[in-house]
């Protein structure tokens, strides 16, 4: 087990290192000049002002130092939680801007991912080898997984929000309200949260159902299932064993899908103008706010790595083979 965890941690450490390095490399070695584009965005005409701004940004990026020094400084600043100053919300530090958005994204993504995983697995397990259900769950599942996240979000917003008028289609809470600890505000928050949650939940649901259905069929064909049924065990019992075995690859699958799920959450937030990281990224891109964009990137990478590690721990708890040091999980 120690080997399993040390290997995982090594991979995550390396990944974080690569991500930070990429984050540092891209602004410096991409064609194009971010400083020039930021100066151009400010729309100043006087050459002295342009020169001053250029010097300011060069100093901010630390472009006047040797490369290795820039790289070391980059790491140093990051460990102090210094991601620079947002240009869109000047002069708020990027970390403050991100901290304000993270709760919304987490509040959206954690319930939708967990619920869709649980419900999708149940559906898929139930539908496998049941002709009628299988013939409905499978096509619906394929349509759902093939949908771009933002499209289902738009459709839901249109049908349930604009036409039926049941839910608001924009914002994290009503514009007339200010965030506070009260029941009315909590209800309002929930009201705004429902549609984005539902669209994330539905798109992810299809994939899990299909995956589980295939795994269950595979398990039901295996020797232990045949042996159990030869012994005269009830079908329910065999299915329960099959489910427990089939859940393991689904846990690994959850870890593999994290990136896609985060991406889905980002675009869904944009559709609903939900005040999470997705909307932040949109604003950062529209305003050429590279500090904000890069800070958000690091936050997302860090979040995905932590989630991966939690899933690894869950896997060890669920699968005794990894604890015994046998080859259970793939590293």
């Amino acid at each position, binding site marked *: 087990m120690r080997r399993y965890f040390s290997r995982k941690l090594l*991979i*995550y450490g*390396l*990944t974080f290192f*690569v*991500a930070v390095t*990429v984050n540092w490399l*891209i*602004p410096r070695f*991409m*064609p*194009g000049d*971010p400083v020039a*584009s930021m100066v151009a965005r400010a729309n100043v005409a006087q050459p002295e002002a342009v020169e001053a701004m250029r010097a300011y940004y060069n100093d901010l990026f630390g472009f006047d130092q040797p490369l290795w020094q820039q790289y070391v400084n980059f790491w140093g600043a990051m460990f102090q939680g210094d991601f620079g100053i947002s240009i869109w919300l000047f002069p708020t530090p990027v970390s403050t801007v991100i901290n304000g958005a993270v709760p919304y994204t987490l509040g959206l993504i954690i319930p939708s991912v967990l619920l869709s995983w649980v419900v999708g697995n149940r559906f898929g397990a139930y539908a496998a080898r049941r002709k009628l259900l299988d013939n409905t769950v499978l*096509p619906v599942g*394929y*349509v759902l*997984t*093939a*949908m*771009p*996240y*933002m*499209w*289902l979000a*738009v*459709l839901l*917003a*249109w049908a349930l*929000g*604009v*036409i039926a008028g049941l839910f608001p*289609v924009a914002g994290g809470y009503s514009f007339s309200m200010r965030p506070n600890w009260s029941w009315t505000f909590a209800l309002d928050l929930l009201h705004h949260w429902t549609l984005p949650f539902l669209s994330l939940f539905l798109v992810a649901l299809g994939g899990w159902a299909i995956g589980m259905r295939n795994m269950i069929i595979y398990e039901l*064909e295996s020797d232990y299932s045949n042996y159990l049924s030869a012994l005269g065990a009830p079908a329910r019992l065999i299915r329960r064993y099959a489910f427990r075995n089939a859940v393991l690859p689904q846990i690994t699958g959850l870890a*593999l899908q*994290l*990136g896609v799920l*985060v*991406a*889905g959450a*980002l*675009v869904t937030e*944009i*559709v609903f103008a939900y005040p999470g990281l*997705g909307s932040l*990224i*949109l604003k*950062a*891109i*529209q305003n050429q706010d*590279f500090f904000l*964009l*890069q800070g*958000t*990137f690091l936050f*997302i*990478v860090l979040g*995905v790595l932590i989630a*991966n590690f939690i899933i690894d721990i869950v896997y060890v708890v669920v699968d005794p083979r990894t604890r015994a040091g046998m080859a259970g999980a793939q*590293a």
Partner: protein
Amino acid sequence: MTTLQESEPREREGMRREALHFAVRNAKLVTGFGIVVVLLVLGMVGPLLAGGTPNDYGTRPMSPPSAEHWLGTTTFGQDIFLQFVHGLRATFLVGVIGGGIAAVIGMLVGFVAGYRGGAVDEVLNMLTNVILVIPTLAVLLIINAYLGIRSVAVQGLFIGLTQWPWAARAIRAQTFSLRTREFVDLARMSGAGTWRIISREIAPNMSSYLFMTFILLFGGAILIASSLDFIGLGPTEGVSLGLMLQNANQWSALQLGMWWWFVPPGAGITAIVGALYVANVGLDEVFNPKLRET
């Protein structure tokens, strides 16, 4: 030995014929590929038949579908059908480039890691795992944001460069199970090099698997590209289905009730990707006799 060599091509021919026999009778495969081909033809022929440039402003803005504008017009009077058929081209292109590059890298890494094993495998596997864990869209966001001018081809290139790890992992596992087979041993004993063994012995024996991997990568590339477009990092010129969705969202098509603006592009993407997935299940049934419905 001579009889074996003589019978081999015939046997392969037979297998191919058998696969074809089941392929044309597989409803999933036929429907899936049918939908993809129809959309592909629409994307190829549509722009030629319906003349004009897709982003031209028209005289009748915000009109619902009519005989003149089959799918209606945008707030700026752009013809949505015209945008749709041009957008299909961009979508297929990004799928081919992104899926193709990812498939090639995935195959190279997977074959070499699986066949060579040992230290080579350790290093390649570590690399695969690292890139697998990084959330791809976030990396693509950063790269595309710093790219001043973006084109469909460059978008596809970067998608390809980030999407290969799961394919590499799957192909590595398959190669692992093939490398200890007798025919591979035989080839090795007869002095064949690594590349020859991989390309002549291992790859042909999993060609169906490789093709299916490519299909999934193709669909995945389309979905990722549409997300990028939607965030506002699509190609700076031209149209794509994702860009249409982005425009519809940006100009409040939702609030204005202009459903004809945001329904077609999303439906197009869903149809292509969904049809590919269904066709893939069909292919699986054709190549794997165990899964065939009898």
